[in-house]
């Protein structure tokens, strides 16, 4: 009887593990471009964003059973990793350039494509905090939720969002006039 129970347990564990694997794979496939885009929006180069997204996904895979809202969790972890990275780079300007990773088969082509993205030119002139709150906002988060994620008050989030939107609006207006 014990052996039968044990066999059922092993089978159940196997099924649970297999389901978790499938869930993670589905999440990864669907979410990884979004996560990379989210980091680029905040100021990471495309290659760095892919690197940080991969690191985050490794952590997600390792702790999958304990993560309740994977998308929010991944955004939070990846954002913090980006802040850590940027502060390290500022201290060490000679930090090595990111290399091709499994996720980025052609880093040079990706970098070239990145240069052609109009939105990145616009975001580049925004202060880091405005870029940050805008990244969360365009991903569908409310000011209150962004405030909770970033550990700042809602008023500061709203103020930064307002300034960021004004800058974007001004840029859109200039573009229309130029064309």
């Amino acid at each position, binding site marked *: 009887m014990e052996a039968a129970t044990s066999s059922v347990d092993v089978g159940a564990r196997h099924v649970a593990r297999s389901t978790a694997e499938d869930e993670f794979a589905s999440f990864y496939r669907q979410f990884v471009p979004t996560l990379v885009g989210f980091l680029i929006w905040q100021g990471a180069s495309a290659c760095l964003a892919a690197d940080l997204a991969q690191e985050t996904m490794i952590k997600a895979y390792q702790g999958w059973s304990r993560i309740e809202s994977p998308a929010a969790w991944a955004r939070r972890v990846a954002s913090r990793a980006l802040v850590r990275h940027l502060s390290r780079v500022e201290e060490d300007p000679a930090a090595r350039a990111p290399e091709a990773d499994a996720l980025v088969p052609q880093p040079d082509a990706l970098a070239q494509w990145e240069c052609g993205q109009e939105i990145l030119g616009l975001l580049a002139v925004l202060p880091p905090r405005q870029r940050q709150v805008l990244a969360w906002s365009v991903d569908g988060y409310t000011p209150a939720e962004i405030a909770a994620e970033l550990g700042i008050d809602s008023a500061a989030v709203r103020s930064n969002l307002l300034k960021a939107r004004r800058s974007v609006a*001004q840029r859109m207006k200039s573009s229309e006039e130029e064309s």
Partner: protein
Amino acid sequence: MTGVSAAIPDEGAVDDWLDRQREALIGGLAERLDVEAGLRAVRIYARRDDLVGDLGRALDVESGLAAILPPPTVVASTSGRVTHFRSDGEAVALGITRQFIENLPPATRLGLRRHPICMASSRGRLVVRVVKLAYELSSDLAAIREVEGSPALHLQLAAARARSRARALARDLSRHPALAHALAAVLALSRSLAGDPALAVARDNARSLARELALDIVKLLTPAGPRTRRAPAAPGAQAFARRLALDLAYTADSRDEIELAAVLAHALDHQVGDLLELKHAEGLGAVLLAGALDDFTDADLSDVDLSAVDLTGVRWSEWGTRWPATVDIARLRSESQETEPGSGVYVVAPGTATVDLTTLV
């Protein structure tokens, strides 16, 4: 001030524009990211704890390899082909993989022998063994230094264990003429194993050898192309393995070396698995290291064009291998080394730099 000035867009228009930009950015990324390769890399890398958490289990592949190669029961058929009998489950699984590779058409195997992924994979498995040797030497040294009184017996035991591992390594290396320098290093290491300082030197030499082999893997995984500031991009999974090899070559932490070597070997196994379209890739590097691609002792090569093929390291037999009519057998024999006197089984040697295989037994 003349002309019509565009109005500042309202908040809704800005949000719509930002949404469209975001969609375009993510859509563009989705087209340019290799999501499947990324997912596989995550799974491989995340499993490193599983792989190295129980180091003994992770390295059981090596036991399986040892089980395949220096056989306790060897039967030589009249064709000169050697058959090994094993009952161990893991060795059986590896044996099936080896059999699959040995059953590939001879021309395919000749091509795969010099394929960078295959060469990197066998080196990857070798790195695991060298790193393990270095780590165990470190552990032995630490344990000996804690022994009160005379540690002579412990030193002798540690040296004997290390010598045994070094000889097993040397046996594998002797099948890979391209790794003759590594073989020389391991043989020197094996000879030097006596006494505390020598063990420490041997440990350092093993770590140097591991780094050297890791750099060799980096070279193999770097696509050929014009030398620019940045090397040409390698395919995703290959770039991932290349990065692991680079990390291994430059890490200063021996625990990291073990982790990285295990993950690297695992990643390279999967690269070979993809190349051969094999579902179960585990242990492929070990099988290649064991010379599965090199055994032509019973192969029919009579229709294979060997004009541009480097035969160095090919194992052939007087009675079983069928060569094209253009091959001068007497000359080939003179350029080969007989594995055991009178066996009729030879290995094509690299120039005159031959190794006396009998000294490794």
